[in-house]
Structures are given as structure tokens and as C-alpha cells.
């Protein structure tokens, strides 16, 4: 927005907290305005009192070490110099192939350039990439889609071949390639730069699951299957490399990080589920193959059941969530059949029960930085259901999720009736068959 | 237990649910009693009514396909045959080196034998293992310790060289080896076979963190640092290979799996923490380097703060916990300093607050399959605090964790004041310096 204001003819200074300095500079550069005026205050601004913030204003800019207000005033009044007036246009390209080198040096290069997750990769040689490309009949130069690490960054574009390169690195086999292309085409990055440390969780449905031997049984959400592991990791690596990076302080700002970001993809246990599969609920046919991308992984609550006190347990989990991120329930078939026996003969019935029982006092709902930042403006603008939630008195108990936001998937090895309630908004869906 | 009864002269039949058939047979074999009499009922027994269980008894053994009671009665009465009387004694050994082969074939062999997490590894060649061994002063044949997937399996022993082999596979560098050896020596497996899908989370303290360039900042619990990633993965791979495997249905029974099992190790941000580091709390000197292993990863609750309603939020998270597994809190330094401003000037004070505020009605506390299986017998035997919890009336609120079970670690990049409450029972804190 600061760049748009400058183009409107309004001299502007953008204020950030100091941990965002590198990111703010990189964004200004990609905007073609590398000399954008930026001033910095200490981190955090959230939860600081008015007096503390006044102290920031009267104190020093932690990046320039000069008084903050002097930075701001000079940013608006000091005449532009020659360099400011130039602007900066440039083409950025990435080559198709790297300089030939020894395997050892290439492996080191991939680490040093932040092209990996710091675990060993398979080097994407011409021969291996060619073999991967046999996994689809689409041409190597076809554009698959675009990705970016955050809404305020620019989109990068990529082709089938570039996806194949990252699939090789992750250790994938050519037969997994259509699933990986579908994930890349979803438009959702698995490497969000959000300070919230989001990860994505991908669910695969339809015949492709069995064709490539994916796991929906024992250890389904863990390191126990080649296809699950490699597909999840390929999606992660392609996200970081095809969107322009995921480098701490620059293109990644997650404060705590998220171990789900190594690899988190699995297949629904359609054959052992009492309910309709996820992709069919979303409009695909049972004999079609599809991927669904859940954006979240912020919290993971756990339970068993349904036992005698299952309602209390489920309500406790639903009210302990981070309320900006709706839950995805993953039920072991034992738990799913247990709920079906209680009368939840459709996923939708259990979803409705969860929406009905996910409640918080309005006071607690609104006392959350993401709800303040992202939902409050909508509420003020009259958008429902946020507007009603804002009208509630502080002690009123309000519903915090809509049924449309909640999803259920059945998976597990039936060694116990476990369930997980994982933070995950369904952000993307794509046909796998379109990429075969 | 069945084997011990047989040895005491009591003919015995062990009853399992069908999903445990492969595990039960291989455990019997390792016990030297391969012909142990076993009968099977359908899964699950948990949450089934008396009537349903009666039909299991009057029904068919799902493994032998013969009537269950017939299996049981014949198991106790049918005379032993020649083969039964032999018993089986045998030595099992694993070779030091594999048969030389092409890299491609060796990579395939590692995957087929379940020696990996299904992501690419570095092949443990003689040269690379020799290089890795330079990371410690200890002899390759020194016994490091022993590991087993669960308490009813037998321990396997491990040497420095075997640990080095797995460290190479994980992509570790020689300078990480002392940390990896310390984790191996902890006696805790990172590949528990529990149906609950436990993982381990390892926290590194002391000077070694900076010597190795470990991450305690942005993305600390994610794929953003070579040492964090490789050490966590080395611990996971060595656990599965040096304990005798982690194969679904045999040596791994986790129903839903756990993505933390790929790699989950990080360094405490000692320099940016307002509190004493974890290893110092556990009796080490600040200048010592130590590794702490948390066994859990079952739930991960998330929050920010401390904000105005922080007490409600933390209480909700505490009461939504799977209460067999105590929480450890990972606080971003921003959140940690926020708690200090509220008067929690020591970790212990915040731990005390959590223990006092982790409350559940006794009815809910006892309605949990792990609490029933593992804690109820202790309560009946009079062991505190469980006996007192059992004396509480169903609606009475009881404290579900003791302060000594709860831990706090400070880590994060200060891009937001986030915290996580992760299921994790501190099972060991071990010296790293002993393995340099």
C-alpha cells in the first residue's frame, strides 16, 4: 500500500517492527521501489501499553539507530537524491541448469542456497528429471500455476519441468507425479511466510491412492510410507523453491516454526470409513482422484472415542483452539464407526455438532491478535457472522466456527480409536486426473 | 507375562485383538517361545459393551477362522507336539557391511528393508562412516546403550559405529555426532511402537548449540536449520534401526502416526530467555552441554500472550490435554518476557500456576483409556496422587498434573509472542560432553 500511495503522489513512510527489516526491504525491491522510506520500532507492538508505544516513538529506530521521529520526518521531507529518482527496473531469471560440478559440491550448493529442508535430497540430474516427466503426459514447458509466500509478495510462475525437479529432490517416483502437480496447481503454498508458522496438510482421495500404494492405515500421519512421505515433501520443496524462497527473516517469518512442514500428506481410508469420502463431499465423483489442501497445522488436539464423556472432551478441544483457524478432524475408522453408532450417520451431522459446540465467551473470542487483525475489520464492515459476534456482550457465549469451515477425514490403522483435531482451513482442491 | 506363567508350569493362552497378531507372534519368537498359544478377537475391545464382547467370545477367532473358545480350550489341553517341546534358541546378528552393489540398488534395499523414513538418505559408505567417527573421541566398538520399541520387547544393544552409520544416513555432519550419541545413550526410543503414536522432542542446551550453529530463532521447530534437522532425524533413524525396526503391524502400532517423527530437535534460546535454561534446572552447569528428551508429541496446543484473557486460554488448553501425557511449554522470548512482567520471574512459578490450573472433573479424568489401563491400578494400590484422585466424587475438580511433570523451554524468532503446549514427558536429560 505504501508503494501505491507514492504512485498517487503522496510521500509516505512505512513503519515496521525491527524483525521485519529484511523482509520489508526485499518487498520494496521486488516492488521496484528499493529506496522506499521505512522506519522501524522495536518488536513487539502487540500487547504493549500506550506508554510503552510512546516510548518507541520517542526512542531510537533500532535499525538506523537514529531517533525514530527524525527518520519519519526526514522520510517525508528530505529531498529525493539522484538514486531515488532512478527507480530500478530489472529482469530476474533463473537458469534451467546449474554449472556442472561434483555431486558433493552440488549437494553443498543446494544447502547453502536454502533450496532444501536441510535433509538430504536426490540431485535433480537431467536424466532423473526426464524420468520424472514420464509420470505425466503434459508437456514439460506447460505453466502449472503461481505461488507466493504471503499476500503482500509477488507471484512466481512455474512449469511442469520445474515441479519435476523438486519432485526428484524429494525422492518421489514418476507415478506420484500427477498428485504432486495437482498440489502445485492448487495455488496454495506449503511454505507460507506467516509469523504463525502455518503448514499445509494434504489429503488424497480416489483410485490414485491405491495405484501408488499410499498409506491410510497404521502410522498414516507419520514416516511409514514412501508415497505419503515423498508427496508431502515434494509439495514442501516445490513451494519454497518455486515461490522465490523460504528463508528465515526474508521469505519466512514463522516465529516458532512447524515440524509438519517436512512432509504432511496422507490418503483417506475410504474403504474402511462409514462415511462419504472427502472429495465426494466436495463435488468429485468416487472414481475421480483429487487432492485437498488444508492450511493450518497450528494446533493439534487429540482424543479417543467416543467414550462416555466424549461431548465434554470434544467441547474442551473445540474451545482450546486458535479460533482464527478452523479444525480438521482426522478419525481412526474405529472412532468414526463409534460416532456412526451414536447416530452420526453422515459426516455432516458430526460437523454440525462441532460447529454448534465450538463456543467461547465473546470476550475471549475477540482477545486474539488474528481475530483482531483479520476478522474485526470485516465485523466492523457488517460482514456476517463476524458482525453478530462483535455485537455480543463480553460474557455472551458465541459460536466461533461455521459448519462450512469444519472438515472430517477418516484415516488410521485401527489399533486404537484415536482422533485428532488439527488446525486446517480447506484452501485448495485440485483434480489429480487432470495432471496424469 | 504369558511366557513367565508357562515357565512356572502353568499352561497359558494369551488373547489379543487381531491387529496385534503379527506383533504377538514376533514377540513370542523373540521370547524363545515361538509356539506360545495365542487366540484372537476382533478389534476393538475398548468401548464395546458386555454384549458385544460376549459375541466376540462366542464368535470366530479372526486369525485362525475357528471358534474362539475352541482355540482357547485346545490351547490349554491339546498335548504338546515334538516341535513345541524343542523351544528355539538362536543367535541373531547383523553384519557390519552390506554386500557391495550399485548406489541405486543400495538405496532401494534401504527402502525395502524399512531402514529409512522413506525420504532420501545419504548411503553410509565406509568412507563416510569413518569421517563421521572423527566427530567423537570414543572407540567405534564402544557400547552406547540399548533401545527397544516398547517395554514388552527385548532390548537391542548399540555401538558408536552403528550410531555413526545412522547419523550419516540422516545427513548429519561429524561435529553433530556427540549430540546424536547422547540422544542414543538416553535409553529413550524415538520410535515407540505404542498405539498412541508417540514421538520424541529433543531440546539441546549449553555451548554446543552455538558451536554447531543450531537454530533457536525463526522457524526453530521446523525445517530451517541443518543441525536441528539432521540431529532430529538421526535420532529417529537410529532408534528404528538399532532397536530392531519400526515396521507397521510388527514393531510399530501407532494408529494414526505422528509427523513429528521425521525430525523434532531444537535449541533453547538461552541468551534471549529471561529464565534459567532447562539443563541448569535439571542439575547441569550452564557451561555443560546436555540433551533433554521429551516423550509425547500427542497434542500440540497453541496460544499467544500473555493477553488480557490469558488465564482462560491457558486453562482451556490444559484441560483439553490428553492427561496421561503432561505438557511442556515452548514460549517465544516475547511471550516469556510477557509472563515475567506479570510476576512469573522464574519458570517454576509459571509451572506451579499451570499445575494448579490444570483441572478436570474426576469423571472426565478417569474416562480415558490410558488412565484406566495405566493409572487406575496404581490408584487402587494406594499410590499418590492417583489414590486421592480416585477418591474424588465424579463432579469434583481434580488437579491432573503435578508441577514436577511440567516443563518450560524458551525458543522462537520474536516475530510474534506465540507459545505452544506440547505433550511431552521429560524422560531423560543426558550429557553431550561425555560423548565428544
Amino acid at each position, binding site marked *: 500500500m505504501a508503494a501505491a500511495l507514492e504512485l*498517487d503522489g503522496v510521500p509516505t513512510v512505512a513503519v515496521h517492527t525491527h524483525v521485519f527489516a529484511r523482509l520489508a526491504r526485499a518487498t520494496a525491491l521486488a516492488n521496484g521501489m528499493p529506496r522506499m522510506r521505512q522506519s522501524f520500532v522495536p518488536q513487539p507492538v502487540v500487547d504493549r501499553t*500506550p506508554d510503552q508505544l510512546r516510548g518507541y516513538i520517542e526512542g531510537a529506530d533500532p535499525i538506523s539507530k537514529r531517533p525514530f*521521529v527524525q527518520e519519519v520526518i526526514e522520510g517525508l*521531507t528530505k529531498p529525493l537524491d539522484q538514486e*531515488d529518482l532512478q527507480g530500478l527496473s530489472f529482469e*530476474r531469471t*533463473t537458469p534451467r541448469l546449474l554449472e*556442472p560440478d561434483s555431486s558433493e559440491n552440488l549437494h553443498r550448493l543446494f544447502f547453502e542456497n536454502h533450496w532444501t529442508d536441510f535433509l538430504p535430497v536426490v540431485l535433480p540430474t537431467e536424466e532423473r528429471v526426464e524420468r520424472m516427466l514420464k509420470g505425466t503426459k503434459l508437456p514439460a514447458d506447460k505453466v502449472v500455476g503461481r505461488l507466493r509466500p504471503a499476500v503482500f509478495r509477488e*507471484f512466481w510462475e512455474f512449469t511442469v519441468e520445474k515441479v519435476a525437479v523438486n519432485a526428484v529432490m524429494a525422492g518421489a517416483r514418476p507415478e506420484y507425479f500427477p498428485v504432486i502437480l495437482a498440489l502445485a496447481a492448487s495455488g496454495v503454498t506449503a511454505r507460507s511466510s506467516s509469523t504463525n508458522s502455518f503448514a499445509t496438510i494434504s489429503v488424497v482421495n480416489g483410485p490414485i491412492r491405491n495405484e501408488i500404494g499410499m498409506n491410510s492405515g497404521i502410522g498414516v500421519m507419520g514416516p511409514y510410507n514412501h508415497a505419503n512421505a515423498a508427496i508431502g515433501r515434494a509439495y514442501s520443496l516445490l513451494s519454497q523453491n518455486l515461490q522465490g524462497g523460504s528463508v528465515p527473516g526474508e521469505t519466512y517469518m514463522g516465529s516458532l516454526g512447524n515440524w509438519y512442514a517436512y512432509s504432511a500428506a496422507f490418503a483417506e481410508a475410504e474403504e474402511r470409513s462409514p462415511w462419504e469420502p472427502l472429495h465426494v463431499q466436495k463435488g468429485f465423483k468416487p472414481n475421480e482422484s483429487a487432492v485437498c489442501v488444508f492450511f493450518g497445522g497450528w494446533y493439534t488436539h487429540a482424543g479417543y472415542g467416543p467414550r462416555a464423556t466424549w461431548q465434554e472432551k470434544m467441547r474442551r478441544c473445540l474451545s482450546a483452539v486458535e479460533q482464527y483457524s478452523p479444525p480438521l478432524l482426522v478419525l481412526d475408522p474405529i472412532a468414526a464407526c463409534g460416532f456412526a453408532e451414536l447416530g452420526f450417520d453422515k459426516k455432516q451431522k458430526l460437523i454440525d455438532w462441532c460447529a454448534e459446540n465450538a463456543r467461547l465467551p465473546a470476550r475471549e473470542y475477540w482477545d486474539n491478535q488474528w481475530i483482531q*487483525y483479520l476478522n474485526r475489520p470485516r465485523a466492523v464492515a457488517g460482514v456476517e457472522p463476524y458482525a453478530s459476534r462483535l455485537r455480543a456482550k463480553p460474557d455472551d457465549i458465541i459460536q466461533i466456527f461455521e459448519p462450512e469451515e469444519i472438515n472430517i477425514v477418516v484415516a488410521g490403522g485401527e489399533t486404537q480409536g484415536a482422533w485428532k483435531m488439527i488446525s486446517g482451513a480447506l484452501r485448495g482442491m485440485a483434480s489429480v486426473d487432470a495432471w496424469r | 507375562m504369558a511366557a513367565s506363567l508357562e515357565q512356572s508350569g502353568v499352561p497359558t493362552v494369551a488373547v489379543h485383538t487381531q491387529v496385534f497378531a503379527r506383533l504377538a507372534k514376533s514377540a513370542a519368537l523373540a521370547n524363545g517361545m515361538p509356539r506360545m498359544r495365542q487366540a484372537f478377537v476382533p478389534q476393538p475391545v475398548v468401548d464395546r459393551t458386555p454384549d458385544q464382547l460376549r459375541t466376540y467370545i462366542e464368535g470366530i477367532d479372526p486369525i485362525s477362522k475357528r471358534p474362539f473358545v475352541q482355540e482357547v480350550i485346545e490351547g490349554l489341553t491339546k498335548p504338546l507336539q515334538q516341535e513345541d517341546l524343542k523351544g528355539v534358541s538362536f543367535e541373531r546378528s547383523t553384519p557390519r557391511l552390506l554386500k557391495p552393489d550399485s548406489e541405486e540398488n543400495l538405496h532401494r534395499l534401504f527402502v525395502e528393508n524399512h531402514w529409512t523414513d522413506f525420504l532420501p538418505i545419504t548411503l553410509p559408505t565406509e568412507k563416510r562412516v569413518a569421517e563421521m567417527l572423527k566427530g567423537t573421541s570414543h572407540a567405534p566398538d564402544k557400547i552406547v546403550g540399548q533401545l527397544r520399541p516398547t517395554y514388552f520387547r527385548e532390548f537391542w544393544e548399540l555401538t558408536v559405529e552403528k550410531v555413526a552409520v545412522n547419523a550419516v544416513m540422516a545427513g548429519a555432519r561429524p561435529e553433530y555426532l556427540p549430540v546424536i550419541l547422547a540422544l542414543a545413550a538416553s535409553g529413550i526410543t524415538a520410535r515407540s511402537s505404542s498405539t498412541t503414536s508417540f514421538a520424541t522432542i529433543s531440546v539441546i542446551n549449553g555451548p554446543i548449540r552455538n558451536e554447531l550453529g543450531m537454530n533457536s530463532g525463526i522457524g526453530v521447530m521446523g525445517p530451517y536449520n541443518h543441525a536441528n534437522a539432521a540431529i532430529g532425524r538421526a535420532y529417529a533413524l537410529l532408534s528404528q534401526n538399532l532397536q530392531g525396526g519400526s515396521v507397521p503391524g510388527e514393531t510399530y502400532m501407532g494408529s494414526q502416526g505422528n509427523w513429528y517423527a521425521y525430525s523434532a530437535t531444537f535449541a533453547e534460546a538461552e541468551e534471549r530467555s529471561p529464565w534459567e535454561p532447562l539443563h541448569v534446572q535439571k542439575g547441569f552447569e550452564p557451561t555443560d552441554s546436555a540433551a533433554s528428551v521429551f516423550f509425547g508429541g500427542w497434542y500440540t496446543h497453541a496460544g499467544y500472550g500473555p493477553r488480557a484473557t490469558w488465564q482462560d486460554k491457558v486453562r482451556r488448553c490444559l484441560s483439553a490435554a490428553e492427561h496421561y501425557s503432561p505438557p511442556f511449554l515452548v514460549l517465544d522470548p516475547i511471550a516469556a518476557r510477557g509472563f515475567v512482567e506479570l510476576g512469573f520471574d522464574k519458570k517454576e512459578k509459571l509451572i506451579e500456576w499451570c499445575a494448579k490450573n490444570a483441572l478436570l472433573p474426576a469423571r472426565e479424568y478417569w474416562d480415558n483409556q490410558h488412565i484406566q489401563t495405566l493409572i487406575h491400578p496404581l490408584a487402587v494400590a494406594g499410590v499418590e496422587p492417583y489414590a486421592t484422585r480416585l477418591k474424588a466424587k465424579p463432579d469434583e475438580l481434580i488437579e491432573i498434573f503435578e508441577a514436577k511433570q511440567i516443563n518450560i523451554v524458551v525458543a522462537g524468532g520474536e516475530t510474534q509472542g506465540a507459545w505452544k503446549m506440547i505433550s511431552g514427558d521429560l524422560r531423560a536429560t543426558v550429557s553431550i560432553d561425555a560423548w565428544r
Partner: protein
Amino acid sequence: MAERVTAHDPRGYPPKVTGKRLASRLDNLERKTVYLVDCLFDNSEVFMEQLRQWFAARLPSVDARIIKPRQSWVDDPDMRARIAADGSAAILGVGL
């Protein structure tokens, strides 16, 4: 000498960067209207109010006005038009 391997570059294709000029700066802020744009990030409202009070106390001739976009992270052309019409400069924060 180890065998040389040719590997692909794993990165995608970045868009072209088109240089953009900054707006001309003001001679000074005397008697000017400066919009303080609250980016809606949690607590930036409080920060901007403190900045407004700072102007009122230290540079009272400056008319510092707080303004908010409709949504976080989304361009708001109406708001920008108002700033361009009625204001001389903008301070935007806290956040992107």
C-alpha cells in the same frame, strides 16, 4: 577428480521488476495534513494514536489524522484517493 554432474536449477520464474519513482518530498510538515494509516494489525491503532498525540504535542501545526483501510493486507483505493485529495503525506503502519 570426481565425476561432474549436471543438475537442474530448482527455482521458479520471478516476475520482471518495474522501477517506480517515489513521490516528491515536502519542504516541511508545517501546517500540512499527514494521514496516519492504521494497517489494522493488532494494537497498531494504539500506536497510531500515540503518534497522533506526539504530533499534537510536538508539532501542533501538523494536522495528523488517523485513517483505516477497509481490510488488512488488501489495497483500498478509496482510502488512497482520500489521502491524495486531502493530505500531503502518509505514515503507514505498523506492519505490511
